[in-house]
């Protein structure tokens, strides 16, 4: 990056370090932090949407719908979620390719799952073997987001379901007494009031979501863990202009600091948000705010 970096073997000390930390592969490492942030930015609203859907289903007066909602919440919570991560990445991939296989392939006589093989015709591969690397990584990222959203959606559904139940029944009845329909009561009274009850659970979930992002590595994404291992492993002078010993411990230390800082900042922001949402609510926190203001 800098001009004086042309011949790394002549450098030493801080200049060497500044050149070392600005190599192309290091920029890949820095970009992967953005991948993590992007995953969080996409997953959090998606998981919230899944959770909202799950909670609404669990509350449904129709028994089958309610059972699906409850089943979704219960199934994800009893089993380690890493099992889901490993499972969905293959299952989703195979499901998509199998569906595509039924539509685009000419020869459907051969079974797709055959002994130790999963075989679809080349036209049914997702993404196609001929497509560019960007599509491959985009597809990988999309499956990862979907898996995260599915697992965390169940947790969010649990929190939101509890929050919806926590809204005082009298509030809803007041709405009904004013002649609102069920839908209006839900939209105008239940949803605005439930957030303050959901916030402790959701903030907890957000902190857990942050701490689950290193699992991207297991899903085959080139994330920060991947690059930390890649860059930190010992480099010999033969093929690398910046030879060094096994530095993985420093890279992982950097990741640890990153996560600690991220958690701390999140905690502070969520604390402020709780304060904001508590105002005007008929809860202990809201009452304290009212007294402080008066």
């Amino acid at each position: 990056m800098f001009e004086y970096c042309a011949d790394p073997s002549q450098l030493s000390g801080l200049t060497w370090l500044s050149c070392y930390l600005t190599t192309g592969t290091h920029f890949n490492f820095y970009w992967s932090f953005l991948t993590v942030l992007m995953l969080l930015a996409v997953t959090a609203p998606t998981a919230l949407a899944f959770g909202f859907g799950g909670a609404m289903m669990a509350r449904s007066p129709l028994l089958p719908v309610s059972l699906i909602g409850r089943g979704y919440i219960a199934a994800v919570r009893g089993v380690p979620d890493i099992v889901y991560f490993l499972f969905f990445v293959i299952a989703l991939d195979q499901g998509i390719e199998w569906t595509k296989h039924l539509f685009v392939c000419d020869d459907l006589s051969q079974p797709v799952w055959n002994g130790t093989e999963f075989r679809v015709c080349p036209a049914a591969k997702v993404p196609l073997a001929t497509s560019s690397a960007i599509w491959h990584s985009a597809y990988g990222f999309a499956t990862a987001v979907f898996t995260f959203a599915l697992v965390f959606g169940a947790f969010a559904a649990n929190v939101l379901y509890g929050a919806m139940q926590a809204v005082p029944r009298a509030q809803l009845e007041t709405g009904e007494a004013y002649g609102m329909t069920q839908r209006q009561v839900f939209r105008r009274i239940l949803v605005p009031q439930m957030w303050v009850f959901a916030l402790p659970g959701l903030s907890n979930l957000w902190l857990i979501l942050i701490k689950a992002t290193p699992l991207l590595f297991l899903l085959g994404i080139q994330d920060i863990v991947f690059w930390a291992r890649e860059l930190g492993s010992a480099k010999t002078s033969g093929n690398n202009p910046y030879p060094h010993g096994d530095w993985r411990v420093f890279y992982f230390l950097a990741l640890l600091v990153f996560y600690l800082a991220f958690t701390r900042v999140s905690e502070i922001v969520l604390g402020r948000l709780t304060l904001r949402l508590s105002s005007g609510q008929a809860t202990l926190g809201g009452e304290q705010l009212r007294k402080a203001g008066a």
Partner: protein
Amino acid sequence: MEPMSCLETIQAYGLRSLGIGERLLPRSDFTLCQHFTLIGSGMIWNIYFGVLALLFGFFLANALALAKASRSPWTRKPAEWFIFLFRGSPLFIQFFLAYEVLVLLPKAGINVMGITIETAWTTRAWAGALFVLFLNTAAYSAEIFYGALKSVPKGDVEAADAYGLTGWSRFRRVLWPTMLRLGWPAYTNEAIFLFHATTLVFFSGFPAFQQKGDALYYANYFADKTFNPFIPYPIVGFYFIVLTLLLIWVFNRINRYLNRYLPSNLTGRIRLRAQVIR
């Protein structure tokens, strides 16, 4: 080769995760029995990590909770930092970091006053990963116990004072039992959560020697070989649900013991609220 009967499979692979029995893992014609046996054999490690980390972690957690509640900053600050360090960072990263640090220990052993202390065993999962899990669960449980200690009813403490109980005996007879009682439902969730976390061990730096791994390690092995995730992963799920139910039963028994002197309408039941990866 003659296909093995299920009993033979159990004899060959039932203790495979400990290195006892058949050396080679099945390579073709995978049967459902092999799936159940090998993955079940891997559960030995999950139980090993979970039980020992929980047992050791319980004592450290109590000490940390007390330290965090103490008035002196010399004991409070280190406890706060320890808890923040382990609760604020992903367990996955903690495993990786611990492994890399342990690898850096001198291979020949450390010489302390003429006695050489071996270091090679610390990089093995049974020791290194257990140590990380122990510290991790201690931090999480300490936060739970600290919260419980803070919510011990004022009347209980005043009653202890009125009886003239002070210092250690006040803690031993009044504060500690109440703290455990109040924190127990949350601690149950933490225990379930810890058992779920043990599945991370062999996916995070710590290598499995001679293919001696945990339940998820073998499930992953089968899924890689058969390209069929629909059998091994649900089996892991099944084993974990059974384990979770067992844990809830044990912790409920303890909960009933902790609440034994209260009128029966006040004792709360433990609700399953397992959390996700830490």
